[in-house]
């Protein structure tokens, strides 16, 4: 085999491979669990069809033993079809995200932890939601009672790899509609031979006679670095189908009708404002919502979002209720009925089919919310929101010039992505600096006391730091940065960011504390201590070791071993009866 991370040659269901266990039972696979490799990528594949009597119906779930609750099945059925009448014939692709219902379930996939620790925060596996990636075919078919063939092939996954899974669908769905179940079976078995997604690795993923090559981003990647460059560094072979990214959409294409409002949209997303995206198709709706949620990277968008949402969804009532303020969520919808249902929401982005004015894409206008009540709502951003920062006119000019010069969409997207990245970084760097200053001093960490506390985050203290080290250092945009921070503190995105940082810092403190214990002179400390105190120390150290391994604290293996040795030394110094007791403990 090559050193390349290509698929393991051990297909599921092969007994008697390089002897791991002495007598493999016939018919049992080499993988510890059936579908273990498959479920590192996908939960299941669904086929949703239109039944004359039932409406949308689940025709098939594969692997057959994968359990979806009835609620999930119903939601998937509706989310996999256009919500309102769509006369368009042909194939369309879109994505959705749905809430898992029925509590935690055992997946075949063992450990989210390791992947989630190394993946960028924005690409972590979802624990309470599923993503659905849909390939919908609608063609005339006189053999069907309805005169139409309407069917969706849906990949259900916990990974937000929209680009990978939509590319995969492009390959497999047309073949599936032609060759049916054996094709699906073959594809799933091929995916069950894929290497797991390991952040930082470039993987070869064989499927249907083709090898897809793609790199899984890692948390330690430099933000905004070119995936192609990383690919070259690893000096891998060219593969037939190289995907530049598992998750990145063509941002420029998605944002074409709203380029001049990028600043406003970025702020609305940063603040976690409730937004409805009303689009002419599930494709446009889902791409716009996913583009919006990705525009904060590397900051994680911590609110709920639904790239495509229908009136049949089980959360419909929850989201449309008028008894509470609208939730912090971005929903993409196509059914005009939502304009009426969601007219109390503060921001509605209505996009139409892309229109050109001259050689430039027509830009939607900002409109008053009061204009919304008409039945046929014209494209526009319906909001009373005033941006805190001024818009970046040079960026817009540059992008528009690029359109006139027919600059490739990829390059335009790269420009746009870079701009958004720099904007987010300018905003977040002062926060990172401030929170880092809340860490106790190294000398405050002593072995015989509990690790010191991280100092509390005081918004006013933070605001004071802005005068000298604010975003003005890295960003030319003028405006009310202070006001933006104040609003941000109230948003779920701040909360999510703060919790994440606080968790990391706490773990760092615990790690440093363990190291301090390692450096300490335990024997000297024990001299004048009572047995009770010593036993207490043993128990505390043990607890620390368990925490270190459970939480994967950033400690060297060496440190852990030394602490283990200390425990042995301490126990050895105690009377024998206590020793046996502690060893049995």
């Amino acid at each position: 085999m090559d050193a390349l991370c290509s698929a393991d040659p051990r297909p599921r269901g092969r007994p008697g491979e390089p002897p791991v266990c002495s007598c493999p039972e016939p018919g049992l696979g080499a993988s510890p669990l059936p579908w273990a490799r498959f479920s590192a990528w996908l939960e299941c594949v669904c086929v949703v069809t239109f039944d004359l009597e039932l409406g949308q119906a689940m025709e098939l779930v594969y692997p057959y033993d994968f359990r979806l609750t009835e609620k999930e099945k119903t939601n998937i059925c509706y989310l996999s079809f256009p919500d309102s009448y769509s006369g368009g014939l042909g194939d369309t692709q879109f994505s959705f995200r749905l809430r898992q219902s029925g509590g935690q379930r055992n997946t075949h996939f063992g450990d989210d932890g390791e992947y989630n620790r190394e993946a960028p925060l924005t690409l972590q596996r979802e624990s309470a939601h599923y993503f659905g990636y849909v390939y919908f075919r609608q063609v005339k078919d006189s053999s069907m009672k309805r005169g139409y063939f309407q069917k969706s092939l849906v990949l259900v996954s916990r990974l937000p790899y929209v680009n990978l899974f939509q590319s995969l669908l492009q390959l497999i769905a047309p073949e599936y509609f032609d060759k049916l179940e054996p094709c699906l079976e073959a594809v799933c078995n091929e995916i069950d031979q894929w290497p797991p997604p390991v952040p930082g690795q470039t993987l070869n993923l064989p499927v249907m006679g083709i090898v897809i090559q793609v790199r899984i981003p890692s948390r330690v990647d430099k933000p905004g670095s070119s995936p192609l460059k990383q690919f070259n560094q690893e000096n891998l072979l060219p593969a037939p189908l190289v995907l530049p990214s598992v998750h990145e959409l063509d941002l420029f294409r998605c944002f074409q009708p709203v380029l001049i409002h990028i600043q406003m949209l970025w702020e609305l997303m940063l603040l976690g404002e409730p937004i409805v995206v009303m689009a002419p198709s599930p494709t446009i709706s889902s791409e716009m919502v996913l583009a919006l949620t990705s525009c904060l990277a590397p900051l994680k968008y911590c609110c709920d979002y639904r790239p495509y949402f229908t009136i049949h969804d089980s959360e419909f009532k929850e989201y449309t209720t008028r008894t509470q303020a609208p939730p912090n969520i971005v929903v993409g919808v196509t059914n005009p009925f939502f304009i009426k249902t969601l007219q109390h929401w503060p921001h509605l982005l209505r996009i139409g089919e892309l229109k050109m004015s001259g050689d430039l894409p027509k830009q939607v206008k900002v409109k008053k919310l009061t204009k919304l009540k008409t039945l046929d709502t014209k494209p526009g951003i319906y909001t009373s929101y005033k941006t805190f920062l001024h818009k970046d006119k040079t960026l817009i000019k540059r992008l528009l010039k690029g359109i006139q010069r027919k600059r490739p969409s990829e390059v335009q997207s790269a420009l746009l992505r870079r701009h958004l990245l720099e904007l987010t970084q300018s905003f977040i760097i002062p926060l990172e600096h401030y929170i880092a200053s809340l860490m106790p001093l190294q000398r405050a960490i002593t072995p015989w006391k509990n690790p010191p506390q991280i100092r509390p985050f005081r918004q006013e203290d933070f605001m004071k730091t802005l005068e000298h080290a604010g975003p003005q250092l890295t960003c030319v945009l003028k405006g009310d940065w202070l006001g933006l921070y104040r609003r941000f503190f109230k948003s779920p995105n701040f909360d999510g960011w703060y919790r994440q940082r606080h968790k990391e810092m706490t773990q760092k403190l615990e790690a440093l504390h363990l190291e301090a214990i390692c450096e300490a002179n335990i024997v000297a400390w024990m001299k004048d201590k009572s047995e009770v105190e010593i036993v207490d120390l043993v128990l505390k150290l043990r607890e620390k070791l368990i925490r270190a391994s459970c939480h994967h604290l950033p400690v060297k293996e060496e440190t852990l071993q030394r602490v283990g040795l200390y425990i042995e030394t301490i126990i050895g110094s105690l009377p024998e009866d206590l020793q046996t007791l502690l060893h049995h403990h």
Partner: protein
Amino acid sequence: MALRELKVCLLGDTGVGKSSIVWRFVEDSFDPNINPTIGASFMTKTVQYQNELHKFLIWDTAGQERFRALAPMYYRGSAAAIIVYDITKEETFSTLKNWVKELRQHGPPNIVVAIAGNKCDLNDVREVMEKDAKDYADSIHAIFVETSAKNAININELFIEISRRIPSTDTNPPSSGSAPNLLCDILKHFTLSWAKFELCAVPTDCALQTILKVYVESSTCFTEAEPILVCDIPRMHV
């Protein structure tokens, strides 16, 4: 040393030993209780041939009838097809002839065909005479060997013979192996120029597609999955 990627697919009736041949070639092991393949399984092995490295991208297909319609996905773009029959089962040899016909009609035009009569360790229950099979193979200009995955007979030889039959890079440019590299070079070149010229005056997607299309069409023994390369050009980021 130049590296060439060669897509190879295995075809043939169920139970003739396609997976066992691949298993022997890639892992040098054998399992008498191997399960039937579902869909296809993929493995790679790189071997040196003269002054080149040949990386075999092996697609081992399912022999069961219900997967029959999937075969084109696997022989599409293949440099070689190994069609396997079982020397102790006459009917598997008839199936083989159908595969040859299908490849002639729908397979890549210059595909190298190799016929492997597997299970030659079971000579005493033989149903297909070696000479008959050899004559047939000669008549269609195919490679022919009798193999035993169980006893490791003629397995490596089979792949060496495929290496030999694949048009070499020197005599027949542009050849299959260098094509993906060249493609990558083209793409890299454009990416660099985009960066250099301040993102203006770059070739459009359309131009790039034309270049690739011309290139792909002109390389007759291009081994990769051509149509996909043409319509799905990797998106580049500067």
